[in-house]
């Protein structure tokens, strides 16, 4: 055998070869320096981006998926009082979909101060549902022993198979980063392995969460590279960010919601009772508790909170029973009753919110400003809640 070809594809001797790089010493250096940077950078950034001191703070709608910021705010929120805090966890009902931040449940509780000894924090996120809420508490909420929480449970997510994530047709779900990726099957969630693995990586690598925060908060939810190549809203494309210094973009973070949000608050066109919007009572196709994915998530969440020794109180509802036909209303009441029995059996303090007056609802589950006031009053008068506060 001849080996004439053995080196036949090597370069000409006078052409320098690329450098041979990467030794053990070099890799140790890279890993150490990268690890230092990865640990230090997000921490330094927190100094640059302090948590705002503000009453009734809530995560702005545009930053709903910024879980790094959520955790940072929940961890470091320095409220307007020195009182111990109670975090109210839940979906858009807690967050206040139709109201401004001074008219949410937490804001009304802060105004009436039942128990007089606490400050209530709006820890709700718009767009959540029980399966995602479970993920939020497990992965992004700074939970610690004896932490005081109010967990609001919105049973609307069991009101039909689609809302309960039972249908196999793919849905564009909100907050997919909070869903279980490999441990539980969620039929309408059909992400590829790549996306699921990326979510798991981000969940367990805080540096990636911080990078995601930078993208959401400063770069229109895009990577730095995608942002610089944004072709703009007009055509022909004008690439508005092509020559913009990315660092200058860092000054534009709007952590506060707009003062006059046209979508929310009493002056908003959306802030009207449900019957003024053409909605009518409807029949609901309730999913049995035994087979409900959302209910299982609620159960898991309660077990998780108990395991972590959190000090929590559960608020069930208030669903808009005026929007349900008689049969649906009866089924809803039965589910609430069974949930209440389950919580009693587990020794968890709770309150079944009474249905609010019809004109205090914006839709099937979201109260209007006056509805939140009524709900806060219900809590303030509830003996179980007052007992839990003590």
């Amino acid at each position, binding site marked *: *055998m*001849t*080996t*004439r*070809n*053995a080196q*036949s*594809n*090597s*370069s*000409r001797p006078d*052409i*320098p*070869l*690329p*450098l*041979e*790089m*990467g*030794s*053990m*010493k*070099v*890799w140790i*250096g*890279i890993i150490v*320096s*990268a690890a230092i*940077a*990865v640990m230090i950078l997000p921490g330094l950034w927190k100094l640059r981006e302090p948590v705002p001191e503000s009453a009734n703070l809530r995560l702005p709608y545009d930053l709903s998926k910024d879980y790094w910021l959520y955790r940072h705010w929940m961890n470091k929120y320095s409220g307007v009082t020195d009182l111990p805090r109670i975090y109210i966890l839940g979906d858009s009902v807690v967050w206040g979909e139709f109201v401004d931040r001074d008219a949410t449940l937490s804001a009304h509780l802060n105004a009436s101060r039942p128990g007089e000894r606490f400050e209530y924090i709006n820890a709700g996120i718009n767009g959540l549902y029980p399966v995602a809420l479970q993920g939020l508490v497990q992965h992004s909420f700074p939970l610690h022993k004896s932490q005081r929480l109010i967990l609001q449970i919105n049973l609307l997510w069991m009101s039909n198979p689609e809302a309960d994530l039972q249908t196999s047709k793919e849905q564009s779900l909100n907050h997919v980063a909070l869903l279980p990726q490999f441990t539980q099957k969620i039929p309408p969630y059909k992400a590829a*392995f*790549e996306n699921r*693995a*990326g979510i798991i*990586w981000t969940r367990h690598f805080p*540096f*990636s969460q911080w*990078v995601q925060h930078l993208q959401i908060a400063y770069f229109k939810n895009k*990577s*730095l*590279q*995608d942002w*610089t*190549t944004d*072709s703009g809203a007009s*055509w*022909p*494309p*004008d*690439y508005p*960010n*092509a*020559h913009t210094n*990315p660092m200058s973009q860092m000054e534009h973070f709007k952590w506060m919601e707009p003062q006059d949000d046209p979508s929310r608050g009493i002056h908003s066109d959306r802030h009207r009772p449900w019957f003024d919007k053409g909605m009518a009572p409807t029949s609901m196709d309730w999913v049995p508790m035994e087979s409900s994915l959302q209910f299982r998530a609620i159960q898991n969440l309660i077990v998780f909170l108990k395991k972590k020794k959190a000090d929590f109180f559960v608020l069930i509802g208030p669903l808009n029973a005026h929007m349900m036909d008689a049969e649906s209303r009866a089924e809803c009441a039965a589910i609430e009753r069974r949930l209440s029995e389950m919580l009693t059996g587990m020794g968890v303090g709770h309150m079944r919110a009474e249905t609010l007056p019809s004109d205090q609802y914006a839709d099937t589950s979201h109260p209007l400003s006056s509805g939140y006031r009524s709900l806060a009053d219900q809590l303030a008068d509830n003996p179980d809640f007052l007992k839990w506060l003590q």
Partner: protein
Amino acid sequence: MLFHTWTFAVFFAVTWTVFIWLKSTRFSNIWLLIVSYVFYGWWHPYYLILILFSTLVDYGVVRAMDRCTPGSRWSRRFWLYVSLVNNLGTLAFFKYAGFIVANINSLLGLLSLNLVVPPPQDWMPFGWDYLLPVGISFYTFQSMSYTIDYYRGHLPMEKSFVRFATYVAFFPQLVAGPIERASRLLPQFHSPRSIRLPDIYSGAWLFLVGLFKKLALANYLGIFIEQVFAFPDDHTTADLVSATFLFAWQIYFDFSGYSDMARGIAKSLGFDLCLNFNHPYMARNISEFWQRWHISLSTWFRDYVYIPLGGNRVGVSRIYLNLLITFVISGIWHGANWTFVAWGLWHGLGICVTRFLSNRLDIRLPGVLSTPAVFLFSWVGWVFFRSESLAQAGYILRRIFTTQWGEFHVPTLMILLVFIVWAYQCLCEMRHTRALLQSPVTQIILGTAMLLYLFLGSASGGAFIYFQF
């Protein structure tokens, strides 16, 4: 399965762990063959039929040649032709049939003949899909090198089918090269496997560099380039200039990034793959460009096309003809489109002209101008390569050379990144700065910067450009 995906990360973790366990046993090649087929079948299981067929034919052909009585030149040659017809026929059918049929039909139309050749999709039996198997040009060329080299007496017959099949399908370089010669890679499947720690470190470095080239550079440049080439009418001439300039870098980052990752992966398994790119835009003449660009393909064409055509051992005009033929074939290898023919022809003409000027008229560009001139030459070539059609290439070149350029919209960050890479390559080429770049401190800074940039800023992923070839 792309190298920069989580799927590959899981695949490689399993592959590597089991391989380390099996490396000293006779099962190591079987394991590599299994994982290589899994890797390839991941795209489409149907591809496996083709690669297996090609492998079986070439393995059988060499066995048949081996059985020929010594001196029976014609029977050996017959078996060589069987291999060539099989490999080139497969390639022609799956890669070029559509193009050939379209051109025949156009010709028939021009001649006003009422005849239409049905498209190759209609020729498929049992309703099978007509697909272009990923990387078919790479593995057929690799397999052919074995039969040709055996025929020429440059290497012995490989007795083990598993070893030969692993050589053809070896997953790090299966779909986009480097195109390894049997004489270089096959012996590595014979030798007792030893994976040394320095191999793993340098393999990891190569992988990091390749990943950076792909994710941070090629994909990023691709966003702007795709937009401009999709809507050339809606962009300024300055944007066309930028996009064509950047494409020269995008294809380099994309393809050399894949080669770097392939070499890195192979190294971590104890295999040494050949260098495929060596700072091509630092070349001082077009010949040198081809000694730095896709080295494994250009040497393949040199050894199996140019030299058999007569190479440099014939008259001057025949040398020029041989060069043109070789480069046109090389262009066609890249794809079934006249744009690739034009690209090959452009390079062939470039080599002929510069060869004529330097050998006959003793005209050479001064050193300081030669590298930029080669880059400019290749830049024009890439316009043909990237364009959808010759008409689009002509339109872009006409606008660049005849209209006001207007406003540049290319992101400053892109230009900055390309400039940094260019400056790094310049420093690599200079003897007195190489030592500085190779110092551990510089490597740590470079490695950390690449890693952090990948975390911080890289754009969303995409397939490698060269997979389509």
